């Protein structure tokens, strides 16, 4: 590597050494900028600049189990203990999206963007634009819930701009977020927002091609440690712990016990159908956002309206009691009617209007009801209706895609289901129009009724009443008949109501079927809320199809049993330092002239835990070409190779990370860390490609651990030959290395963070 002179120069320049408030358990550098995201033991997320200036801190309230950056560095994905994955804005840490894709703790995340090396052969299909932004103003957002003070809502309000930005993915390169959980499930989501697949590695059967009996095996009790998608999105490397068992019940023989396995899955659907998936994800995730807007609008409206009506009922309740008190045999409506008719004014009504309600009371109720009705109308006009319209448009676009069977059938876009969803969009638009009509009528009726009441009060109190607004007595009658003790608005906003539609309208709807109307004639009998529920269900059904189709297309390719784990640790998943990365294969670039796609080779390195390997304790395993080999095995350009590396005596590996150009950064702790001194540790870089790799056969023998084959050829790590920097602290995991920026952050056991510049001679990374 470098010349020998570097030996006496300290290799990695220490940028600074700062105390940290609490111990850090996860740390990741931003792929684009000099930003370090850290998760503390008490589950706070901190974002620091390179100069250690803190940008923000948030605490999601739940235990954070994993973290990764979006490839463009503009968002952080965080995996939580309860299986939720939430996305946060890099600017302010605001929650952008939250997706509960797992049921147990999300232990690892990997967000991979399609590499540039994939040649864009289908330029036309990927250049298909999202027309929505051309035809519609920006999509409506979730309406503010009034009365709720700041807190959560303001949180939502502020994140609006970035929220919108997140779903507008048309300019983004295609990317996929993978997440693995403790129970062996792996979820995939496009752009981190649209779930597109879920698999459980426990369900894969591992064929045993070279054995006489053809019983496939299965991994059981597995827990994912690390997932990594290849740069071309074609393969997924999974590191997991688990037991490899016979599939059949007859022989309960365990081939090998609890241990660490490495799997390769074929995810080539992501790269083969990338532009189709991109389209689907873009439309569908936007539709889901807008559905959320409708849901929120409905709940806000329901709440506001029932609050307003409660005020009305509270005020007018006393009239019924007054009627009973006055021993009258009538209803409030009848009393009001006789007041309107001018026949008589019963003492009850008189007392109610003049004493208990009064002019102020009427005005207050009027303000509450009509103000709320106006508020509801605003919500419908600004949120509900536009959202439903855009959903209809986007569904129409998806319908076009679903009819392109040659392309989109493969990713499970089903024409029938999308058609059904489009019909539902139309129905909700009709429902919204009807709701709006009812709402305006109700508002008009109420204000007319209250105007009349005001006039009545003035008359009863013998005050001049010419300043008042006019009223329509016919409308008062209608109000008393239909609205005084009914609430059509509320009915429409509730799910379990049947709306009886008059014959004339039913006839019209039936007649419309001949004109290509909705074949479901009963839809007007549903309430708005019910219709929304059905629409949502139809969307779910339509989007589940691609999810299951794509999930089914992710196939098992290969498995490698690496090393055993103590069975005691099966339940408590222990932290094993490991790192997966892939590099351009310089040695192979010439030979693989046919395609540029195979010029990447993957490296997996991991620490081998001490206990079971009494003879090969304290060593690091490195393996390369695991995922690579399968595709190009015909050419035989690379095969699976591995090497064991003994950590020098007196040191133990704390963490490791693959760095650029197939280098490995190792973080080693001195064995004497328990002494009085603050301990001593070192960080070193090993050039992995120069290690004496040994080709190992894959899949031949699943009964033994593959790494034991390497025992004989393990090499001793020569510290004097490598770049080593001593650290005057006892260090702990994690080690955060940024390949793009050439920096490493090390955490000392005594709550200190040390940032080193790994690239000392060439371009020193400057803070941006």
């Amino acid at each position, binding site marked *: 590597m470098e010349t020998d002179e570097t030996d006496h120069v300290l290799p990695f320049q220490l940028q600074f050494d700062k105390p940290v408030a609490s111990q850090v358990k996860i740390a990741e550098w931003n792929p684009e900028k000099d930003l370090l995201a850290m998760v503390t033991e008490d589950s706070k997320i901190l974002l620091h600049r390179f100069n250690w200036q803190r940008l923000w801190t948030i605490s999601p309230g739940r235990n954070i189990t994993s973290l990764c950056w979006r490839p463009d560095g503009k968002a952080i994905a965080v995996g939580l203990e309860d299986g939720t994955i939430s996305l946060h804005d890099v600017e302010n840490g605001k929650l952008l999206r939250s997706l509960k894709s797992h049921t147990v703790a999300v232990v690892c995340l990997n967000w991979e963007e399609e590499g540039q090396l994939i040649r864009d052969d*289908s330029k*036309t*299909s990927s*250049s298909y634009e999202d*027309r929505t932004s*051309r*035809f*519609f*103003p920006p999509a409506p957002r979730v309406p503010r819930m009034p009365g709720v003070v700041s807190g959560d809502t303001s949180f939502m309000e502020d994140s609006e701009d970035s929220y919108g930005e997140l779903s507008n993915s048309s300019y983004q390169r295609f990317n996929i977020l993978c997440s693995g959980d403790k129970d062996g499930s792996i979820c995939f989501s496009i752009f981190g927002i649209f779930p597109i697949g879920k698999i459980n590695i426990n369900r894969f059967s591992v064929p045993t091609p070279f054995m006489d009996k053809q019983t496939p095996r299965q991994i059981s009790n597995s827990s994912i440690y690390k997932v990594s998608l290849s740069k071309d999105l074609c393969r997924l490397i999974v590191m997991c712990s688990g037991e490899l068992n016979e599939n059949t019940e007859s022989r309960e023989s365990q081939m090998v016990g609890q241990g660490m396995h490495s799997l390769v899955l074929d995810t080539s659907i992501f790269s083969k159908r990338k532009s189709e998936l991109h*389209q689907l994800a873009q439309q569908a995730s936007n539709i889901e956002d807008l559905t959320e807007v409708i849901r929120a609008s409905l709940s806000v409206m329901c709440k506001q309206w029932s609050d307003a009506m409660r005020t009305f009922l509270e005020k007018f309740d006393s009239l019924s009691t007054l009627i009973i008190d006055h021993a009258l045999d009538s209803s409030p*409506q*009848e009393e009001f009617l006789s007041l309107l008719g001018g026949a008589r004014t019963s003492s009850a009504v008189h007392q109610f209007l003049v004493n208990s309600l009064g002019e102020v009371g009427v005005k207050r109720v009027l303000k509450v009801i009509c103000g709320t009705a106006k508020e509801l*109308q*605003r919500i419908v*006009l600004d949120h509900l*209706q536009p959202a439903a319209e855009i959903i*209809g*448009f986007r*569904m*129409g*676009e998806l*319908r*076009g895609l679903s*009819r*392109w*069977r040659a392309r989109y059938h493969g990713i499970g876009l089903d024409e029938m289901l999308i058609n059904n969803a*489009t019909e539902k*969009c*139309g129905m909700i*638009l*009709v429902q919204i129009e*009807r709701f*709006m*009509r*009812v709402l*305006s*009528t109700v508002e*008009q*009726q109420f*204000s007319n009724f209250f105007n009349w009441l005001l006039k009545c009060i003035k008359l009863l109190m013998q005050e001049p009443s010419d300043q008042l607004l*006019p009223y*329509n*007595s*016919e409308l008062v009658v*209608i109000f*008393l008949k*239909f*609205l005084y003790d009914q609430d059509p608005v509320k009915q429409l906003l509730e799910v379990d109501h049947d*709306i009886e*539609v*008059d014959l004339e*309208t039913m006839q*019209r*709807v039936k*007649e*419309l079927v*001949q*004109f*290509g*109307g909705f074949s479901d004639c009963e839809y007007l009998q549903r309430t708005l809320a019910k219709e929304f529920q059905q629409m949502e269900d139809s969307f779910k059904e339509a989007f589940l199809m691609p999810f299951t189709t794509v999930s089914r297309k992710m196939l098992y390719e290969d498995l490698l049993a690496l090393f055993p784990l103590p069975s005691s640790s099966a339940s408590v998943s222990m932290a094993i330092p490991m790192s997966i990365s892939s590099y351009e294969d310089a040695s192979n670039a010439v030979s693989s002239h046919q395609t540029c796609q195979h010029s990447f080779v993957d490296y997996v390195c991991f620490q081998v835990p001490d206990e079971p390997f009494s003879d090969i304790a304290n060593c690091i395993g490195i393996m390369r070409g695991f995922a690579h080999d399968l595709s190009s095995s015909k050419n035989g350009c690379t095969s699976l190779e591995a090497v064991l590396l003994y950590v020098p005596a007196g040191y133990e590996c704390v963490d490791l990370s693959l760095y650029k150009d197939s280098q490995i950064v190792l973080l080693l702790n001195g064995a004497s860390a328990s002494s009085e001194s603050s301990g001593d540790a070192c960080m070193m870089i090993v050039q992995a490609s120069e290690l004496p790799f040994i080709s190992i056969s894959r899949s031949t023998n699943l009964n033994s651990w593959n790494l034991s084959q390497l025992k004989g050829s393990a090499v001793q790590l020569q510290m004097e030959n490598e770049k080593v920097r001593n650290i005057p602290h006892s260090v702990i995991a994690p080690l955060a290395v940024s390949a793009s920026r050439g920096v490493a952050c090390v955490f000392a056991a005594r709550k200190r963070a040390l940032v080193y510049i790994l690239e000392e001679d060439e371009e020193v990374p400057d803070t941006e």
Partner: protein
Amino acid sequence: MTNGAEGFDSVPSSSGSNGSGRYEIGLIYLGMMHLHFGHPKQALQVLTEAVRFSQQQSNESCLAYTLAAICNVLSEFGCSSSAGVLGTSFSPITSMDTSLSVGQQLFVLLRESLKRAESLKLKRLVASNHLALAKFDLLHAQRSLLSFGPKASMKLRTFPINVCKELRLCSNLISEFGYESSTMTTDGAFSTTWLNNLPKSMDSPLLPQENGHRNNCDAHRFFTQLSTVPKSVLQLLGSSYIMRSTAWEMYGSAPLARINSLVYTTCFADASSSSDAASVHAKLIQHLAVFRGYKEAFVALKVAEEKFLTVSKSVILLVKLQLLHERALHRGNLKLAQQVCDELGVLASSVSGVDKDLKTEASLRHARTLLAANQFSQAAAVAHSLFCMCYKFNMQVQNATVLLLLAEIHKKSGNAVLGLPYALASLSFCQSFNLDLLKASATLTLAELWLSLGSNHAKRALTLIHGALPMILGHGGLELQARAQITEAKCYLSDPSYSVFKDSEVVLDLLRQASDELQVLEYHELAAEAFYLMAHVFDKLGQLERREEAAASFKEHMMALENPQDEDDPLLNMF
């Protein structure tokens, strides 16, 4: 296409209720009458007088209405001489540069009218103006005012977002009409509703006592019948849905076009004027014809004819003629097509003034009939004169269609190279007017032209088709879909790198879909082509039985094309 004039009919009565200003209102009505009968010059004259008089009387609201009416005249008939006709006393018009085009004049007037209506709080007029602006934005490209200088793009574009915004602003009327005091209904306005309900509610007392079920029933009548929203408001709101539907027909979103028509027919049928209702039904029938074939469309047409018997049948009649023409062309019955075409031409020059849109359509259809009869030079001549007319009257949207037709004519006459520039010109028109569906169809024509230039262009044609396919499949009718599928299949077949033996299903699937669609349409010529190609593929694959099947279907369609029989045509006998 609807005009946003619904609101005008009943509106001036609001200012007339106080007794003053009857003369101005009379003038407005007269002006609109002139417009209705196709005398734009007289209409403008009368309206100018109304402007003068309203100004004299300082009747502000009447002035606002007059202004809106003038806008309506201008948008209906782009009178180039309007500025001369309008009096010099009216400031917004005199201040206008005479060099402005009619479109720009209209735009300025519309803005002015909107501003006045807003300041006078004439909510319905505001909504109606928003509607007119939406229509303007739909059809007129505007140079961006912000871009200036050599680097600014000189591209003319329409801005669909503005259309959407104006339509939404128009919809706001539903929450605002209450502020306009004059919309308060007068006593007794609901008596008819009451009377309608009388037989149903006879047996129950006016206020049923705690009788849950009955009560419920009454409450629900409320939903549909006792809406107290004034009819004029509902008509305006309904118009906004018709406008939406029209806009989506142009922009290319078939589901939204249909849904908006359905919203109108479901929610506004009781309040709408019968001519609006008829035009929406006409839209739905056309949608049916394009997407589900003629059989269903004619059934619906029959219903519509009965339904709108009392109305001036012109819209329904027009649809009927259009459908008959399309179908005759597809079936190869050119005599009938020509006959229908002539009838359309008569309809276009009726006593109620010359309808330019209709006239354009009639000659467009004439050219297409000639094209179907392989009379290329005549067809091209008709198309050329049509293009000149559209150009003269600034009808750019129609221009795109005519250009595409010219490209088709050249394509069919075997002169693909001549067709290319027309197709490209049509494409660029479509792009600047956001006519996405027409653009997809122009792209398809372009692909067909390239393909006919030889098999070495198959790749390029395929790329073009694939770019347009989502649009065509999602929003295009059966004919367009089938054409795209056949062309795609042809691209594969003529691509030397494609082998039938390796992947025959790709082509066969396309052809199968296309032939299904074409059989629904009874489009014999294209169906025959699809079966011909299918037979070819089967022949190569050695599946003789299926080849014979396809060949038989081919023959059937060719026979049907050559001797069209309309005697025993059940659909024709319906009328």
